[in-house]
C-alpha cells in the first residue's frame, strides 16, 4: 500500500496549546482534524509536514450553541436540527458516508485545491515532471499560466458564503473573525488567507436566509464537485429583499457572484428573472480542464444548475430533479 512519510504527532488538549505548538514549529507543522484530505495527500507527498498537530482531543471544537465548532464532523453537522438548508445540502453531498464520519467542517473549508495533474502519486507526477502546484515549474492545465489554477473543491464554503457566515481564526497572536469568503484567495497554491499558525475554530451563521446548494458531479457519491451553486435569498412577500449567490469548483476559490445577487434584489422569481439570473451566474463559471467531465459541457450546464437552485427557492417541487442529479434525496 501507499505509505505515509514519517512525522511527529502532537495531540494538544486546548486550542491555546495547539496554537502554541503551531507557533513554535512554524510552517513545518500542519493541523489535522479528520485527515480525509491531508492523509491521502501526504501519501502522495503533496504535503510532508514534520509535525502533525491533531485537533481531535481539543476541547470545544464540537460546539453547536450559537456558533458551530469547526471540529464537528460532516455527519455530526447533518444531525444538528435547524442548520441552514444550503449548508445541509452541501454537507450531505460531500464525499461518502465513511468520509463524512471522519471529515470535519473546518477541514472541508480548508480543503486543498485540486487538479488532475496534482492529485496523483509522487511517481505519476514524476512522469510528467511535476507541475506548478507542487515540485514543478509548468502548469499543465494552461502551460502559459504563471498562476496555479487548481480548483477549490469545498462544498460547504459556497453555502456558508451565501449565508454570510463568518469564521474564527485563533492563534497565539489573538483571535479574529472574518467572512468566509475572505478565507479564500484565487491562487491554486496559496489558496487560503489563514496564516500557518492560525486555527479555524468556529463558524458563525446569521439567520434569516432561505438557501439552497446544488452540486454537479458525475456520480451520486464520492466525487468532488465540478460545479457548486449556492443561493441565499431574503424575501419580503414575494419580492427578493436581499440575495447572495456563490459558485464553487469554478475557480481556485469559491466566490460571490455579486452581479447576480444585485440583479435579483427587488425582483420576483419569475421564469424570466430566473433565466436572466442563471445566465449571469453561468457567465461567471469559467471552469478549467483540470477536473472531471467535459469542459465545454460543464460550462454549458452551469445556467441549468443555477436555475435549479433558484426554482427550489421559489418553492418549485424540485425533488425529482434532485433525485435525478444527486441520485439520492438531499
Amino acid at each position, binding site marked *: 500500500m501507499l*505509505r505515509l512519510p514519517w512525522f511527529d504527532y502532537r495531540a494538544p488538549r486546548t486550542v491555546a496549546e495547539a496554537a502554541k505548538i503551531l507557533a513554535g514549529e512554524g510552517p513545518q507543522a500542519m493541523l489535522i482534524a479528520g485527515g480525509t484530505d491531508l492523509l491521502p495527500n501526504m501519501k502522495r507527498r503533496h504535503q510532508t509536514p514534520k509535525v502533525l498537530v491533531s485537533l481531535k482531543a481539543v476541547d470545544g471544537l464540537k460546539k453547536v450553541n450559537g456558533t458551530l465548532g469547526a471540529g464537528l464532523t460532516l455527519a455530526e453537522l447533518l444531525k444538528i436540527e435547524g442548520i441552514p438548508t444550503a449548508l445541509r445540502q452541501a454537507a450531505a453531498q460531500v464525499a461518502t458516508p465513511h468520509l463524512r464520519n471522519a471529515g470535519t467542517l473546518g477541514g472541508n473549508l480548508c480543503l486543498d485545491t485540486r487538479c488532475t495533474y496534482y*492529485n*496523483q502519486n509522487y511517481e505519476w507526477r514524476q512522469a510528467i*515532471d511535476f507541475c506548478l502546484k507542487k515540485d514543478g515549474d509548468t502548469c*499543465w492545465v494552461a502551460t502559459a499560466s504563471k498562476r496555479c489554477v487548481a480548483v477549490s473543491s469545498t462544498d460547504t464554503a459556497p453555502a456558508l458564503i451565501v449565508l454570510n457566515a463568518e469564521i474564527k481564526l485563533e492563534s497565539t497572536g489573538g483571535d479574529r473573525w472574518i467572512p468566509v469568503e475572505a478565507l479564500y484567495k484565487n491562487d491554486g497554491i496559496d489558496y487560503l488567507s489563514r496564516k500557518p499558525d492560525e486555527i479555524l475554530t468556529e463558524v458563525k451563521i446569521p439567520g434569516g436566509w432561505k438557501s439552497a446548494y446544488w452540486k454537479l458531479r458525475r456520480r451520486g457519491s464520492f466525487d468532488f464537485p465540478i460545479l457548486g451553486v449556492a443561493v441565499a435569498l431574503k424575501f419580503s412577500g414575494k419580492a427578493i429583499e436581499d440575495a447572495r449567490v456563490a459558485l464553487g469548483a469554478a475557480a481556485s476559490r469559491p466566490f460571490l457572484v455579486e452581479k447576480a445577487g444585485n440583479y435579483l434584489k427587488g425582483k420576483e422569481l419569475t421564469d424570466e428573472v430566473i433565466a436572466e439570473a442563471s445566465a449571469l451566474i453561468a457567465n461567471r463559471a469559467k471552469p478549467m480542464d483540470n477536473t472531471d*467531465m467535459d469542459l465545454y459541457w460543464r460550462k454549458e450546464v452551469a445556467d441549468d444548475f443555477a436555475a435549479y437552485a433558484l426554482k427550489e427557492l421559489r418553492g418549485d417541487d424540485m425533488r425529482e430533479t434532485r433525485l*435525478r442529479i444527486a441520485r439520492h434525496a438531499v
Partner: protein
Amino acid sequence: MNAPTPGKKLEVVGKPRRRVDGRAKVTGALRFADDLSLPRMLHCKLLRSPHPHAIVEQVNVERAAAHPGVYLVLTNKDFPVPFGIMPVAVDEYPLTAHVRHVGDPVAAVIAVDEQTADDALRLIEVRYRPLKTISDPIEALDNPEPRIHEYGERGNIHRNQSYEFGDVDEALAKSDHVFEDVFFYQGNTHLPMEQQATLANLEGDGKLLVSSSTQNPHYLHRQLARVLQIPEARIRVIASPNGGGFGGKCDPANHEMVVAKAALVLGRPVKIGLTREEVFYQHRGRHPVLMKMRTGVTKDGKLTAMHLQTLLDGGGYGSHGPASTFYTGVLTPVTYELPRFKFEACRTFTNKPACGPKRGHGTPQPRFGQEVQLDKIAEKLKMDPAELRLGMVTKANSLTANWLNVGSTALDQCIREVVSRSKWKDRYRKQQYGRGLGLACSTYMCGAGLPIYWNKLPHSGVQLLLDRSGQVTVYCGATEIGQGSDDVLATIVAEVLGIDTGLVRCVTGDTGITPVDLGSYSSRVTIMMGNAAVQAAERVRAQLADAVAEKLEVLPGSLVFSRGKVFHPGNADGISFREAVEMAESKFGTIGAVGSYSPPKPPGRYKGSGVGPSPAYSFSACVVEVGVDPKTGWIEVPKIWIAHDIGRTLNPVLARGQVIGGVYMGLSEALMEEQAFRRLPEKLSSALVHKMPSMLEYKSLTALDMPEVDVALIEDPDPNCPFGAKEVGQGPLLPVMPALVNAIFDAVGVRIDEIPVTPDKVLRALELKSKGLAPRVGPDHFPSVPYPEPVYVITPEEGGDGKETKKEARKRAAAAVV
C-alpha cells in the same frame, strides 16, 4: 448431461442457498493474499519507469543495496528468461530493460518493511534513453519505428489477420440494404476490490510456495518454472481467495516472479502488495477497439452477410492479445443467422499498460457495434427491434458460418421475457420525449474449447476423498475469484451424493495438492470443473452403491442417494450416508475417485479455428430504460431488465448475483469507465500517462448510481453441461452497453456510436440534431489497415468441410460454376 439418480428430484441444485464461503467472507475470516504474514517476512516494492518508452541503459543499485534494512535489489540482469501467458507472446521480463509504458517495472527492492523498501527505491539510479512514443493504433500503423517489440507481424502491428467465410462481397452486393457503421469502444479496466498481492516462501521441504491473488494458478505455475528455471515439481502455487478478478489476474505478473526469485535467493518469505495505481499499470483490461461493420440485410429483415473490421489498441505487451484479437470477431455470428461473414482484425502495440482479458474478453466491443447497428436496421426497415431479432436468432445445434456449434439456445425466450417484463410493446417508441427503452442481446462461451498452451490433457480434474466420518473432501485446481466456484463444486458433489453441501469441504486452487484445472477464465469453471466433479462423484457413488447393495441385498442401480441417506425405493428408511461410506471403506479400502473433463472437438478445421469453440454458449437479452434531459444531456437509468439463458441454475442466489454484477459492470462501462491516457504538449514533454489511476478519479458506478435490475433466469438444460448449467459470469454484461445506447436513441433520437456515453456527447448530438445535421456522435472514419489476404473457408451451409480453401481452388470452383 448428467442424469441424477432415476426418479430423484434435484435437491441441492436450483435451491437458493448461502454460498459455502459466505460466512468467512462476511465475518472477515477469509484470508486474502495480503492478509498473509509469516515470521521473518520481508517486503518488496518495485521501481517503475516514469518514461513511456525507453531503453534502460544503466541501473546503479549500490546506494539502495547499502540502505539500512535492505536485503536485496533485483534488476533485469537477474531475470534472463522472459514469460508471457500465451506461447506466441512470450514478451515480458519480470524487470525490464526496455520500458514499454509508464509504470513498467525496472528494479525491485526487498527490505525489512514496505516503508524502507519504498525509501530505497528512490536511491536506485536509472539511466533511461527515451524513445519516441506511440499513443494509439493509428500512430502505431503510421510509425513502424521505433518498434515497441522486436516480434509481431511488422512495425508496431502485433497481430494482423483476416478470415472470410463464404463470399461476403457477393452477398453484400445482392442485399436489399447494406449498413455501414463505424463504432468505438473505449478501453476500461477490471477494478477489482482486491489489489494484487503475492507471498513467496520456501516450505519446510525446500520447495517454493507462491501464494498469490491469481485466477490461473496452473499457468502461473508453469511460467514461474520457466522464469526461475527450476522444475515445476519444486514449485507450489496457491491461488489465495481473490477479491475479484474479472480477467485482471489471469496473466502471470512481474511482481509474482520477483518475490518468488527473492524468496529463493534470500531463503525468507517475501511479500508484495500492489498499490491501486500499480493495478492500473498491471491492467490487462478491455482493449480500446475501433470497428467497422458492413452488414447486408434483406428487406424483410434477414442478415445476408457481414464484413467486420477491428483495430485493437493492445498496449505495451502481448498478454492474451492474440486471443483477444480473435474474440473481436469470432463470436459475432453466434446470436443471429448470418450466412456469410468476413472478419479482419489488427492488434497494435502502444506505449500504455497492456490490454488483455476483461469479463467478456474481446467480445463486448463487436457485440456493442452489432447490436447498435441492428437497432438502426430495425429503424430503417420500420421493424420492431425485438421482432427483427426474434426473426433471425440462430437455431439450436446449428453451425455458424465460421464453424461454431451453437448448441442449446434459448435466446428467443430471453427476448420474449424481457419484452414482456419491461412492457416493451406498450412503451417502446411510445413514451414522452426524453424517456426511452433499448434492447440488445448477446452470447458468451462456456469455456474456451482449447487450452492456452497446446496439449491433449484434460482441462479440469477433480478428486474426491471420503472417509468413515462421513465428510467428503473435493480437490480441484479451480480458483475461487468471488464468482462462487467453490459453491458450484460443493453443489454438484452434494447433488450427486445426495448430501448437504455442509458435508463437503472444497480444497481448490492449489497446484501442490489439487488436480490441474486451467483456471478461472472464459467462463469455463462451472462447465469443465462441474463435469469433472460429476464424473468423480458418480464413480464414488457407484462404490458406495455396491457396498450398500450388498448389505441390503438389492441391485446397486436401484439405490437412491437422497437427503443424506442411501435407500431402496421400497424401503425409505435406508441407511445414513455416513454408514454407506463406512460400508464402502470396509469393502474397498480408502474411498476416493477422480474425474476429468475435456471439451468436445470443434467442427472447424482451418488454422485459427481454435478460438471461439465452446462446449456451449449462454445467451442474454436486456432492456435498459433511460431518462435523458434534453437540456443538459444528463442521463438516468431507472431500471434494467435482463433474461439470461443459464441452462440450469445451480444456486439462484449466486446466479442472480452474477447477473446483477455483470449488469453493474456493463452499465459502468457504458456510462463512464475509461482507461484513458494523457499525452502532454509534445514541445514541452514526452509524457504519456494514465489519466487517472485512482479509484476516485477512474469513474465507475457507485451504489447510488445503480438501478434496479429485474433478473430472469431462463432454464433450458444443455446436454454438454453439468445438470445442464451454462455460464453466468460474463454473458450478462454484454448486452447492457448497446441496450443503453439504443435506449438513448428511443429517448431523444440521437445515436452515440461509442462508449462511454456521457452527457456531453448526448448534448453535442442533440445540438447537431437541432441544426439539422446527422444526430450522431462517434468515430468519423475507419483507417486504412493493411489486413492480409483472408483465409477463405466455405461455410457449413454451402457445403464446406471446415478447412481453408486456397484462393486458386476457389477461383477454379468459381470458374467451373460459370
